[in-house]
């Protein structure tokens, strides 16, 4: 593991002076031949790859008007330069969003604009060659596709789309990223990113049922593959495996139980996270989405609910119907799909859940908005619901809640540092440094408002914080799931006094 220094937390955020090339060494492990081939990509760099890459880029800009506009419209105003958490944490100017876009834009200009074809050096156009490819591999894996820069761009240029396109081109010429591509392969064969087979999942859920009964005296079920259930819950497989994710899963189960809702998990579609989005691959994204449709049909459910997972919700909320619809077999009285926070929020609004927020009196909680939820989707039927509803659920579950500074939450939220397919140990330096802006905002509220816990709504954020918090002097268990707070506060009928 490379040695690096954890950035120091300053009393207030400072835009760092640039350090050219300071992260040029950072790159994730390259996908193996079999990881690539499972997804329909070549196993290694193909012959004539320069032309293959250029041709693919042409196809992408023809297919996506948005991508072409993003590549054409930048006026180098500089509004984005200090908005990326990876720039703020690493000082590498190539991590400024405009510079990242230019890695692809320079090649686009060379082959697909008049000026670039005839006067390349005048317009910053570059030939597609190995040094460009290497730079792409490094710096397009230093973008978590969080879209914060797009909020501040006067043209709304979305670097996430640019980075997805670049990754798709790299996959097409045979240079994929191991972490994402290995995981997509597992999800397509076994049903989830972990590679958790049905018997292991069943055993894990049974163990959790025992834990809940031991703790509360109430039998709360965690049904798996139960035909005829009303609700199919699709949740990130980390919810079965990791801490504090699993406490959130227990929270979902308690909500369903107490509200008398019939629900089930599916071993076939045991993954909400859709890594197809990270690599910009529509085909792979669709394959994963179709598993959810098939499971819903097979089990005969009436509703689909998603657990706490950021980009899963972006794919679900924005694309599920396009990828795997129509969902006309589901109950039209409910949103398709629905977020677990919406379910809990609706029940709370109707007074259908009894909560004892004093159960969380040992915590002062703040909330980390996940990028893909805050900026990429919606909850509820009102503007900004994706920001209001999770907070309402938290506030119903605990008495002490404080928000972080306004420019670090809501639409301007900072990435945890591990999103977009970068949550891998080979990128730990990037993850630690990229977490700096979030850690500074957290530090602010721990120092001045006594905040003790950071609630998160995404499996990646939870795992990232568990790993990264100690680098900044916090404890790993200061991160909690939203539905972990719900789980602590919800009063189940027949529950033993604590």
């Amino acid at each position: 593991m490379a040695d690096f220094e954890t950035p120091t937390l300053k009393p207030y955020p400072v835009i760092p002076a640039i350090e050219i090339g300071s992260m040029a060494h950072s790159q994730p492990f390259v996908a193996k031949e079999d990881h690539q081939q499972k997804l329909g990509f070549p196993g290694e760099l193909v012959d004539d790859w320069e032309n293959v890459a250029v041709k693919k880029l042409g196809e992408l800009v023809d297919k996506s008007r948005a991508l072409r506009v993003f590549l054409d419209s930048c006026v180098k105003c500089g509004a984005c330069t200090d908005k990326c958490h990876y720039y703020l944490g690493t000082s590498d100017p190539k991590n400024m969003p405009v510079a990242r876009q230019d890695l692809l834009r320079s090649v686009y200009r060379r082959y697909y604009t008049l000026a670039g074809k005839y006067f390349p050096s005048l317009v910053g156009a570059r030939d597609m060659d190995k040094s460009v490819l290497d730079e792409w591999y490094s710096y397009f894996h230093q973008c978590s596709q969080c879209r914060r820069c797009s909020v501040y761009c006067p043209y709304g240029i979305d670097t996430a789309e640019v980075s997805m396109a670049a990754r798709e081109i790299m996959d097409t010429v045979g240079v994929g990223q191991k972490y994402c591509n290995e995981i997509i392969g597992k999800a397509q064969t076994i049903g989830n990113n972990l590679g958790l087979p049905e018997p292991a999942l069943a055993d894990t859920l049974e163990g959790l049922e025992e834990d809940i009964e031991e703790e509360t005296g109430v039998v709360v079920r965690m049904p798996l593959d139960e035909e005829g259930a009303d609700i199919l819950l699709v949740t990130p497989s980390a919810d079965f495996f990791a801490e504090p994710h699993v406490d959130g899963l227990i929270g979902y189960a308690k909500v369903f139980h107490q509200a008398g809702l019939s629900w089930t998990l599916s071993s076939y579609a045991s993954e909400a996270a859709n890594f197809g989005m990270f690599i910009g691959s529509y085909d792979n994204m669709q394959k994963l989405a179709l598993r959810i449709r098939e499971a819903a049909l097979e089990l005969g459910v009436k509703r689909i609910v998603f657990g706490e997972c950021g980009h899963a919700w972006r794919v679900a909320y924005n694309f599920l119907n396009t990828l795997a619809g129509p969902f006309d077999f589901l109950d039209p009285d409910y949103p398709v799909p629905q977020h677990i926070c919406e379910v809990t929020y609706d029940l709370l609004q109707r007074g259908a859940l009894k909560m004892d927020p004093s159960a969380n009196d040992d915590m002062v909680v703040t909330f980390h908005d996940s990028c893909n939820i805050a900026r990429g989707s919606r909850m509820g039927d009102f503007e900004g619901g994706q920001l209001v509803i999770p907070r309402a659920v938290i506030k119903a579950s605990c008495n002490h809640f404080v928000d972080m500074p306004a420019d670090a939450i809501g639409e301007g939220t900072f990435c945890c540092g591990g999103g977009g397919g970068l949550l891998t140990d080979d990128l730990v330096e990037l993850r630690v440094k990229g977490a700096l802006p979030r850690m500074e905002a957290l530090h602010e509220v721990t120092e001045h408002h006594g905040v003790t816990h950071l609630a998160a709504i995404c499996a990646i954020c939870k795992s990232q914080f568990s790993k990264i918090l100690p680098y900044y002097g916090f404890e790993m268990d200061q991160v909690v799931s939203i539905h972990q707070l719900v789980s602590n506060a919800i009063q189940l009928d027949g529950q033993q006094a604590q």
Partner: protein
Amino acid sequence: MALEHGGKTYETDEEGYLVNLSDWSEDLANEMAKADGAALGENHWEVINFLRDYYEEYQIAPAVRVLTKAVGKKLGKDKGTSKYLYELFPYGPAKQACKYAGLPKPTGCV
């Protein structure tokens, strides 16, 4: 990458996880720990053996909760915590212990 031990070469991935699970031996586990500057004591072995048994049955490493519960049952409730497991395996029980146990690294949002 590869691991040299006892005059033989064992194939590993970039992070030192064994590629062929059947290559594993107790000796090799000690060797891998040594390379990380760690030494495996009786407490580590309790965990490693549990992981191997679980993997044999389910073809996957156990969830952290399953592991802590099993350790708690065997070694007493005070040890059935992730804190205790992190003391034993500072790089994370799921990942570091899996490596010494010769199992593949857990993947996903973990």
